[in-house]
């Protein structure tokens, strides 16, 4: 299935100043990396557990079989693509592409304390 072109109103970041919460410079993006890592780890663990459930139900493999797995060329390419996507997901925060923006706080509102 061809994926439709992304809707810019939904995917483009507005050009606004970055919101930060920590005193140390760079800490916010470091913390975002941690959240991405946690996401990747959780989704992966969930995937592995689901796989184990399915394979066990079908009597296909046991853990020892998993340990001996050797990917084919095609499978290795799939794993590489997944690895690249993982790295991109993790590193996107560093250049500000995933930055947290202010949402244009109205100028006539009282100055809030964050």
């Amino acid at each position, binding site marked *: 299935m061809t994926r439709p072109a992304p809707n810019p*109103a939904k995917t483009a970041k507005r050009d606004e100043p970055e*919101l930060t919460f920590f005193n140390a410079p760079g800490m916010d993006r470091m913390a975002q990396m941690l*959240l991405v890592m946690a996401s990747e780890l959780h989704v992966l663990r969930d995937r592995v557990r689901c796989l184990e459930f399915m394979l066990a139900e079908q009597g296909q493999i046991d853990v020892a079989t998993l340990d001996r797995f050797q990917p084919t060329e095609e499978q290795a390419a799939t794993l590489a693509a997944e690895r690249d996507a993982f790295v991109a997901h993790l590193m996107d925060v560093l250049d500000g592409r995933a930055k947290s923006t202010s949402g244009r*706080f109205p100028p006539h509102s009282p100055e809030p304390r*964050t």
Partner: protein
Amino acid sequence: MNAPVRATVAFQELIGSLRQHWANQLYPALHQRYSEIDRGGSPAMADQAIAQVAETPLYQWFAFIERHYQRMKYSDPRWGLAANFESQPEWVRERLADADASPYLELNANLEIPDYYREIDIHQHPGNLIGADYDGLMYRASATSIHPNTRRFEAHERFADLVLARRPFRSVLNMGCGFGKCTLPIAARLPDAQVIGIDLSAPCLRLAAASLADTEFTHVRFAQRDALRSGYADGHFDLVTSTQLLHELPVDDIRRVLRESFRLLEPGGEVMHLDFRPRGRWMEFLLDGHAVRNNEGFMPAFNRLDMHEALREAGFVDIAIEAFAETEGATRADWPYWRFPWTLFRAVKPL
């Protein structure tokens, strides 16, 4: 029809767990820290305690996580809600198909939309609630994890119970109804009334109308109209309501909504706006921060608006401003978890 892929489900469940931990573990620890410094002293002591707490790593993590769990929920490039809905246009079409020929839905493509509604991603909802067919579906999917200590939409069910407890209203307007999360519970309790929900967002209204297909209701209408100038006749309703609408509006518009509520009510009719109201410096500080972190820029001004005076100025009498428990026990003084200070603003149009 495609469900979200397993990875998206797992990711969104993780965000929900993060939110639960933030509200039920991190917030009590933060409040404990604040209470150790401010032992019920003066407002100046409260401000001093807030200034100290704001410099702690605990508060900075609290603020960071509040911002980013919501950002990731919507906008994570791999498993966020926007990416999920963008990739499933057929599924979205099927979900909204019942709205297309619905006799209960009135849309107005020419309705004037305020600039702030286009320009601010309220709740960090990308592009706000206009611009994509799936905006209502995405808002509803996001709303599942807002109130971690309550059942889904429990606050709206309890609000509808309060409405029913007042009297059997005959003609009800629900302003800023969104996808009908409050309109439908009210309609369920008032089967003999005419119930109308209005909102600016066509995608939300389409979802609301599509949701009617799961009910037997024939006494509900949804219309794309502005709560500031709804276009209904003077005295058309005996109850005007909203939930979580006022704090999203500029103060001048809040006053206009109250005047419009007054105009729309018959003499003796009632207004019931459910929203938030911080009590004390600590909660005001947290809501000021929340306003920035969740792109709800008008909230600080609303928090400082004298609502009793604003309702009186609009013409109302018998004004009551009451704490509202979104779940059993939530207004107890020793409630330990994060919660918004839900408050009911209730008043009567004089006979």
